[in-house]
């Protein structure tokens, strides 16, 4: 049993509150990702689970046992730090063996576990090297290896890939996913990176200013964000928002066009959100918006075009392939009413079901 349960977890530094009561249950073997803007308290929460930060209020349970006052090593956790945090004066082997040696594990078992982890992570050739003589990616593997040999119930990762270049990040991401599959351990992972969150997580926890905004599977968060914050935060390309005024069972968009909606709470709608991938270019007659192209970001596989509307609003439209478009030309943008998100004046989502 290695579930993690947070109940009313508070954290203050001095009299500055940082976390305002976090409730969360992480199931045994689950991969949970914490995302949120910088300074929202992701690391703090992780470090409280790790036992590196005093818990101001509330309860942290690991495997059903309250661990508020249990020191780190006895919590059955292992942590992978952003800066790798390898012991610079120890060889790769000793880095991985350090915790086991401190726990007075028999030498043969230390050796067997270190070599097993090295094999999984393909760092066997470097066992005798010093961390200084390794590349960033290799160091990160050693840091993960150091976590693995402790055979923890819960792995904690604090932005483990953020110091790696894009290619290596992608590769290591896949390896962490495989690792989760092999080890079958609970993993809690903090990241800034949308792609890491969407691809690795069983469930994503969106934090904002010390509170949980939403918890859900990546698809739930993508399809049904509970508020404008989550809607704007999740997914690769930020959602577009425009103000709307309800009129019967339809909505008036800026620019005067209306769209029909089946949402029963349409009367409360104040803004409409639509993802760039759910917008497209059409002809004047069926378009909801008209504007001029300000910027074209060409990614090869797709392009993002930034459109300035007559009323000053901006829209980002994602188009597949390499559309033949020119800057400062007029385009007509259409949306599919089935995939728009409606929010009330407080930014809360108006669910249609």
């Amino acid at each position, binding site marked *: 049993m290695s579930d993690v349960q947070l109940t009313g977890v508070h954290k203050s530094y001095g009299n500055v509150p940082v976390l305002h009561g976090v409730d969360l249950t992480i199931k045994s073997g689950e991969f949970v990702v914490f995302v949120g803007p910088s300074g929202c308290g992701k690391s703090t929460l992780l470090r409280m689970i790790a036992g*590196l930060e005093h818990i101001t209020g509330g309860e942290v349970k690991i495997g059903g046992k309250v661990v508020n006052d249990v020191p*780190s090593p006895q919590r059955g*956790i292992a942590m992978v730090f952003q800066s790798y*945090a390898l*012991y610079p*004066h120890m060889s790769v082997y000793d880095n991985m063996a350090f915790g086991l040696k401190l726990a007075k594990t028999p030498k043969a078992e230390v050796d067997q576990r270190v070599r097993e982890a090295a094999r999984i992570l393909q760092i066997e050739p470097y066992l005798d090297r010093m961390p200084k003589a390794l590349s960033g990616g290799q160091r990160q593997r050693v840091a993960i290896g150091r976590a693995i040999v402790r055979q923890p119930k819960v792995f904690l990762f604090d932005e483990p890939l953020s110091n790696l270049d894009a290619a290596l990040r992608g590769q290591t991401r896949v390896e962490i996913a495989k690792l989760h599959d092999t080890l079958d351990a609970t993993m809690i992972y903090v990241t800034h990176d949308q792609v890491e969150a969407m691809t690795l997580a069983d469930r994503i926890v969106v934090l904002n200013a010390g509170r949980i905004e939403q918890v859900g599977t990546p698809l739930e968060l993508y399809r049904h964000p509970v508020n404008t914050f989550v809607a704007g935060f999740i997914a690769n390309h930020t959602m577009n928002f425009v103000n709307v005024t309800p009129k019967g069972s339809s909505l008036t968009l800026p620019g005067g066009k209306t769209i029909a909606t089946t949402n029963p709470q349409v009367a409360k709608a104040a803004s409409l959100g639509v993802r760039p991938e759910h917008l497209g270019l059409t002809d004047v007659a069926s378009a909801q918006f008209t504007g001029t192209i300000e910027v074209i970001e060409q990614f090869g596989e797709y392009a993002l075009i930034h459109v300035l509307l007559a009323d000053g609003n901006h829209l980002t439209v994602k188009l597949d392939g390499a559309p033949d478009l020119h800057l400062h030309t007029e385009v007509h943008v259409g949306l599919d009413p089935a995939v728009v998100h409606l929010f009330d004046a407080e930014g809360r989502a108006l669910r249609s079901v």
Partner: protein
Amino acid sequence: MAMKNQINPWLASNVWLLVLGMLPAFLLLAALIYFTAWAFSFSFTDLELVGRKSVNWSWVGFENYVRLWTRKGFLDALWTTVIFTFFSAIVGQSVLGFLLAGTLRTTKSNLRSFIEVAIMLGWLLPDIVAAFLWSATTSQTGLINNLIITPLGFKPVNFISEFALPVVTIANIWKGTAWSYLLFSAALDSVSREVVEAAKVDGATPFQRIWLVILPIIRPHIATNMLFITIWTFTYFPLIYALTGGGPGRQSETLAIFMYKQSFGTGKLGYGSAISVAMLLIVGALSLIYLRLLREPK
């Protein structure tokens, strides 16, 4: 020409300016070599400060060096110096400096500022003033006797004459800890917080974190610190001289004081030079050991 300008745009373009800029360094180097050579040469003579032998000196070969070993003074002073250096610098200043740096860096209170100011004061006070303070504090009618010993009903103790070497040692710890404190504070700042936390998660006790993680990481800083404070303390003169003059008897006579007394008290400049050359060799040998420590282990 273009290359030259790239290396050092305005200095290299004018040779005379270059020479002028290096002149002070040359002069300093020349003076150093001159004085060392002077001391080295005269250590083989019977030159004296005054009298006949101040003019009509002669070469005496290794006689002065033989005297270092055969006459009593030198070896006693060497032993006193070793004790003084070991306890005041290596044990006192460096351990105390490390402990202060380690404990104070996590405290963010007025206490920290207070202690920092206190230890910096010791460092900044001129040696003579410090000597006066310590002598006033530890003498028969001093502060310690008036505040502690006499009220407890004991007879006042003249610390400075009965425990000369310990008093001098403690005075030097007080005086020199600031350096070690500053150096170790900077060294500890260079130890990544996450590395120490990783050790904590790995199950290291506070002592193990210091002994197995922090100290090995700052080993080069420790060696640098040892190098400096050993050299300084080994040749330290003013505080001890002003406090005890090497006495009572020869209880606190370190090599620096012994050399001073032989050279300028007794006036035997030749013998004094031999003492200083011997000191130079000892300090040089110690430095080599520390420099070895500085290097990364293979």
